[in-house]
């Protein structure tokens, strides 16, 4: 069981917020002057990527902590504490990366749907889109790396390095694609929050509200995922005790050792 009083309250608030968000986003907020009702996709598209960015930043931060803790890890009680903290941050990184991948995937899907309505095409080779797709693929690779069976400390270190490489790479990709497109195509289509289009106050508040809702829900899932990862470790520990006793009771029916 991964629920607690706090997460139950959080979950209830999240659910209620999601219901209110659907009403606000689909009925209350006005249609855009240019895009019409298609603008309503913004309320799922933009919060998704914000939550995804937040998750990936958290993954990177946690990964840095993992490396930091394992580096200073020495023997004795200090080593035990460092190891425990490294495991904690490794779980944070894993849970956040999964959430990030899911929300990035949703961003890409809702973005294409939105793009089809407003630009008439599912995809644009825009800096933001290209970066997002690489972000998605890189972290898919990160999750694939995490899934491979290995000694837990080695795996934590390896995946932490991978997460940090991904983070270092991102701004480079973003600026190089930005540069690439601005040099080779007329100004890219900036539809969304970064554009110069003026959104009405209601749209602005609906968007902020949607973001808060998404964050709550992501937090709720993330906490549960963290606890599941912890449970998996506990299950592994429990299995180890059993494996150890089975292992110790293995017979030694080799050739008898000659007593000399």
């Amino acid at each position: 069981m991964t629920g607690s009083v706090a997460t139950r309250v959080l979950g209830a608030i999240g659910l209620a917020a999601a219901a209110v968000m659907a009403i606000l986003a689909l009925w209350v907020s006005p249609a855009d002057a240019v895009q019409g009702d298609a603008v309503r996709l913004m309320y799922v598209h933009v919060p998704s990527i914000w939550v995804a960015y937040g998750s990936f930043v958290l993954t990177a931060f946690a990964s840095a902590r993992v490396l930091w803790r394992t580096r200073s890890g020495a023997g004795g009680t200090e080593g035990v504490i460092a190891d425990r903290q490294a495991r904690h941050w490794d779980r944070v990184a894993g849970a956040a990366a999964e959430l990030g991948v899911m929300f990035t995937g949703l961003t890409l899907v809702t973005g294409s749907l939105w793009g089809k309505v407003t630009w008439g095409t599912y995809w644009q080779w825009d800096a933001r889109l290209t970066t997002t797709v690489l972000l998605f693929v890189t972290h898919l690779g990160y999750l694939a790396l995490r899934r491979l069976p290995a000694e837990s400390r080695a795996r934590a270190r390896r995946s932490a390095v991978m997460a940090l490489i991904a983070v270092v790479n991102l701004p480079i990709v973003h600026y190089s694609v930005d540069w690439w497109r601005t040099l080779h195509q007329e100004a890219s289509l900036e539809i969304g929050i970064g554009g110069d289009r003026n959104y009405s106050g209601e749209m602005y508040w609906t968007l902020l509200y949607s973001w808060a809702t998404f964050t709550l829900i992501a937090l709720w899932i993330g906490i549960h995922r963290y606890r599941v990862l912890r449970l998996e470790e506990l299950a592994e520990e429990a299995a180890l005790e059993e494996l150890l006793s089975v292992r110790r009771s293995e017979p030694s029916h080799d050739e008898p050792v000659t007593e000399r």
Partner: protein
Amino acid sequence: MWREVWLICRKDLTVERRARVTLIQIVPTVLLILVVFAFAFDANPSLLGAGAGGLFWVAVLFGAVLGAKRSFDIEAEGGNLDALRLGGLSPAAILWGKAMALAVQMAAVAVFTAAGLVVLFSVTVTDWPLLLTAAVCGTAAFAICGCLYGAMTVGLRSADTLLPLLLIPVAAPVLLAGTRAFDVALGTSADQGWSWTALLAVVLITYVAVGWAAAGPLLEDA
């Protein structure tokens, strides 16, 4: 430190000198990629000429994936990586030694790819210094990146299939900047070729920095 780097590099190059895997397997594969692209573009000379810069980097990238795989396969075989660890080599020395050797092999791949482009796609070079600088920076960046991910996946059961998935997205900036710089050097576009080459250099420096930081955690015991 440099003695150790040179030790690893020399060993890898000797392996290549004896087995010639890069020369008789990776280079032909890369040339094959060029031919396959010609099929895909219906052997349209103008299209192939315009895309030559990009093709070069795509081909070299796939060569780098194969090269990185090969470079760490020889270490996984028979527990050679353990033998290196028992020699007391520092992780950084192992990484940089292998990266240097891989860079040399990738340089060979790049030369053959370029020759293939000249022969098959009849490209002409208008700016040699730009072309060479971009090629050196990009190839070295591929080599370092390949070694980082090779070290990350060495000995893992699904390393063969995981390596491309991890490596290709990270190589995207090199692919982009390299392509632009080559387009200028080959006279197919009038861009700021040196700025793109500067970007390649920045990427290279970044990978070097990441390599310094990551070698320890990656190769200490994994």
